[in-house]
């Protein structure tokens, strides 16, 4: 493993559970990754279990929340995903496995596919292609912009602000169409290969118009008291175990893009967006400013990607046909990692650490002490996708 090493104890920040292991900033251990500081169950006069989901308005995907409440305020919560899927990848070639991996969660398809391919390349000891790495950054940042636009649209929708909601959804659709124009598929399906990205980045600069339009909406939202009121002080989370925008909203500079040198982010140069209040508003701010920051990266990439108008047909050379690889990327909602074992050129096993599996725990910590009307804003601010939580790779 090029990027990671096995250790007896964790070092650096803890990312989360990956299969039976525990993933840290630079090491992976066989430690238990479970929470040790779990708050006791609350039983008070007048409390009862309130069920929200799995099939309820306001939830995009099937997840059931058992909320312990005495009316309005939330004392305790337990989330149960209702989308458990066993996906078989063992014994498949990396190409066949990738077809399944990139479909685990379409909105994060690039993150999943790239992390998986980086792990495969690590396991097979394939020398990375610089141009392919740059293109992968482009895909990840396009995905980040699209996701953040969508998350902010969900937040404005929860506040019944229809004009910004539909405007943001329109911009999301424009991003989808731009991705479709660049890569032939709106969700990057069939685009990623080992050391290869089949996209034409000639028109990547069009992102500027979209982000310009977004900035106007973003500034408007920052002046809307009714919107800000719903987010400020809602779902405060200061947790060193948090990841992605949730961690950065609490002032933590957690970002896989700068922690590891898997992708050449450092060469492009960008700054980590952080907030201080650690609440839903902080998470909204981080996402909003990350859209702008990502657009700057993309513009930078228009100069760096040399064969932007040509689909690369370059092959790859594998020195190993057996080995293990672990790679982590910064998906729109935080760290996403794959740990794979390759045997005889085929995938022997794969383990996934999805950002949503970490974020849902963070969400459940942050929701305690809030009230029902805070719930939707807090939930949407984490940008959780249930589809990737219930995945069991076999």
């Amino acid at each position: 493993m090029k990027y990671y090493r096995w250790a007896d104890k964790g070092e650096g920040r803890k990312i989360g559970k990956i299969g039976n292991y525990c993933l840290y900033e630079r090491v992976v251990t066989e430690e238990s990754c479970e929470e040790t500081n779990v708050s006791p169950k609350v039983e008070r006069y007048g409390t009862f279990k309130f069920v929200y989901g799995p099939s309820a308005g306001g939830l995009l995907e099937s997840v059931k929340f058992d909320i312990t409440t005495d009316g309005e305020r939330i004392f305790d919560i337990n989330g149960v995903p209702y989308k458990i899927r066993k996906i078989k990848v063992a014994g498949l070639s990396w190409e066949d496995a990738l077809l399944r991996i990139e479909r685990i969660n379409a909105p994060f398809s690039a993150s999943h596919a790239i992390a998986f391919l980086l792990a495969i390349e690590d396991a097979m000891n394939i020398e990375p292609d610089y141009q392919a790495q740059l293109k992968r950054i482009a895909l990840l940042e396009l995905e980040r912009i699209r996701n953040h636009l969508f998350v902010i649209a969900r937040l404005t929708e929860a506040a019944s602000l229809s004009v910004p909601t539909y405007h943001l959804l329109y911009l999301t659709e424009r991003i989808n169409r731009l991705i479709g124009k660049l890569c032939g598929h709106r969700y990057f399906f069939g685009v990623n290969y080992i050391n290869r990205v089949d996209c034409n980045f000639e028109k990547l600069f069009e992102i500027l118009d979209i982000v310009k339009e977004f900035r106007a909406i973003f500034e408007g939202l920052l002046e809307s008291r009714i919107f800000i009121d719903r987010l400020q002080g809602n779902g405060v989370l200061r947790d060193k175990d948090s990841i992605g925008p949730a961690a950065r909203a609490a002032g933590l500079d957690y970002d896989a893009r700068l922690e590891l040198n898997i992708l050449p982010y450092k060469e492009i140069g960008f700054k980590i967006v952080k907030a201080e209040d650690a609440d839903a508003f902080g998470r909204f701010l981080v996402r909003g400013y990350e859209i702008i920051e990502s657009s700057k990266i993309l513009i930078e990439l228009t100069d760096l990607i040399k064969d932007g108008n040509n689909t690369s047909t370059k092959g790859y050379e594998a020195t190993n046909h057996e080995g293990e690889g672990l790679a982590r990327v910064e998906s729109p909602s935080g760290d996403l990692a794959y740990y794979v074992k390759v045997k005889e050129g085929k995938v022997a096993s794969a383990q996934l650490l999805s950002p949503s599996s970490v974020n849902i725990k963070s969400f459940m910590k942050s929701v305690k002490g809030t009230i029902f009307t805070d719930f939707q804003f807090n939930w949407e601010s984490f940008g959780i996708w249930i589809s990737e939580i219930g995945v069991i790779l076999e």
Partner: protein
Amino acid sequence: MTSMYLVLPFLIPPVLSILNRKLGYLSITLASLYLLIFSLYEYPYELSTLFIAISSIVWILTSIFSIKYDDYGNWLSPLYSVIILGITIILESSNYIEFLAGWEIMTIPAYVAIGLIRKEYRPPYIFMAFGELSTAFLLASFIIASVNTNTTSFTQLTSPLPLILATIGFMIKMGILPFMVSEWLPIAHGTAPSNLSSVLSSTMTLMGIYGILKIAELTTDIPVAFSLFISAIGAFSVFFGSLYAYVNENTKGILAFSTIENNGAILVSLGLFMFVKQLGISSIENMAFYTVIIYAFAHSIAKAGLFMSAGAQESQAISHTKKLRDLYYVLGLILLTSSMSGLLPNLGGVASWLTLENLLITSYILHSLISVIFIAIGAIVAMGEGFATAALVRYITYLSLFRVDYKKIDKLLSIPMLVSGILVLVLGTVLPYLLYPYKTSMPQLGMLGDSLIVTEYDDAVFGAISPLYVVLFISTFSLVTYLVFGKPKIRRVKIWNNGVNDQEEYTAFAMSNNVRLMLRKILRTDENKYLPTYGIDIFWEYIYKFSRGAMEFGGKFGRALINSSVSWYVLYIIIALIIISLIIVI
């Protein structure tokens, strides 16, 4: 005592109760019936007769209920009958000494009963302390009145001091603000057995109303400021009584706070009565007087029934009550709670309407700065009525409607309750026409034969309602619907719960918790640690900022106008209220 023969029968039940409690209750029923019939026959135009009618109806119903209900040992029944004896003496008294004697006979057994039956020290001591504080004020008032008039008989009073002192004494008994803050009445009434609570809440507090009205009628010179103060205190009692009722968890505590709310509403009209009496506006004086009477009827009869409904429950914690779906019980509860919520055509609906109408007409007629006070009082009462409705919806939901635990209860427990419910409905369409002097007809709308109850000044109608036509409309449309569509088809399905089988129960505590949390600064709950969120406190935050930063206000206002902030909406409502007040004044 002018009518000793009406009191004498009430000496029998305490003796009979010691021998056999059921016989005791039966004898109270008969004595009350006797008192009712003979008072109506002999003294139909006396003020006391109206209060006797209210009290005896309550005693008849409560005593029938007690026959089955009372399993509290040997002492409840005798003490219960002595309390009633005391109230009868008050109602039949013709001088201060008799009144005071009745007052003590009524009060002492009440705290003995609470102490003996619950075997707790605090509730009876609280009751005793407040009961005797009330007596002290009454004693002072009556001594001054007797010295001033050289007689102990009820005669005209020129000094307002006896009225002021007596009103404070009576207000203590009614649990009105600021005495409500100590929550003595809910503690005492909530601790007593239901039949006793019923008598305490319905008829003991009624004596406070009777006392104020009686002394106010005798007083020729009432300070305007005092009457306004009384109305204002009444309005705040309505608001806080209903607010506390809504967040209370004890079924009897809810009803006790509701008693404070109703007594507050009656006090508003009593204050208005004193105010217009002093100004010599006779039409509003009459309207306020009958509002007090109608409200007293509505409250006492309904409250008696509601305490009986609480008595049918095993648990006093509303979150642990069993939902009883007995037909009589449900029907009774629906009628009682709808009347107490101020819904027409029930008596409570007429009373609530008259209370607010009188305030509005007075503010309209006065056309001065004092009008603002009446508008403010009306607004506070209306807010309180809203909470009262919520409190009663919560009460009926968790005692009966929400689910079904039991389908049958003893008829002796449910029938008196149903009868009290039917009475508030029937009296709603009968009593205003019998008592209230201002009626008219509106042939163009088909309202004939003085069926329209009106508020008026200088022969000009200000507002009108017709409970009779509400009954006719509801029954006609229901009948037509039934005849056209037949019996409604009911399809019972399992409750949809997000697609899962969990069938959890939303607790009564949870139902009112939103208000508990939002108004925690008013309710003085120590819950701040659970709610650190900025959003909940936005209203208070803005009020704070508003008072602190008038300079910044102008700059922020532009943005606030287009921001749809809830806090600003609240401010708009307040501004609108002030503007309306000013328009009326100008």
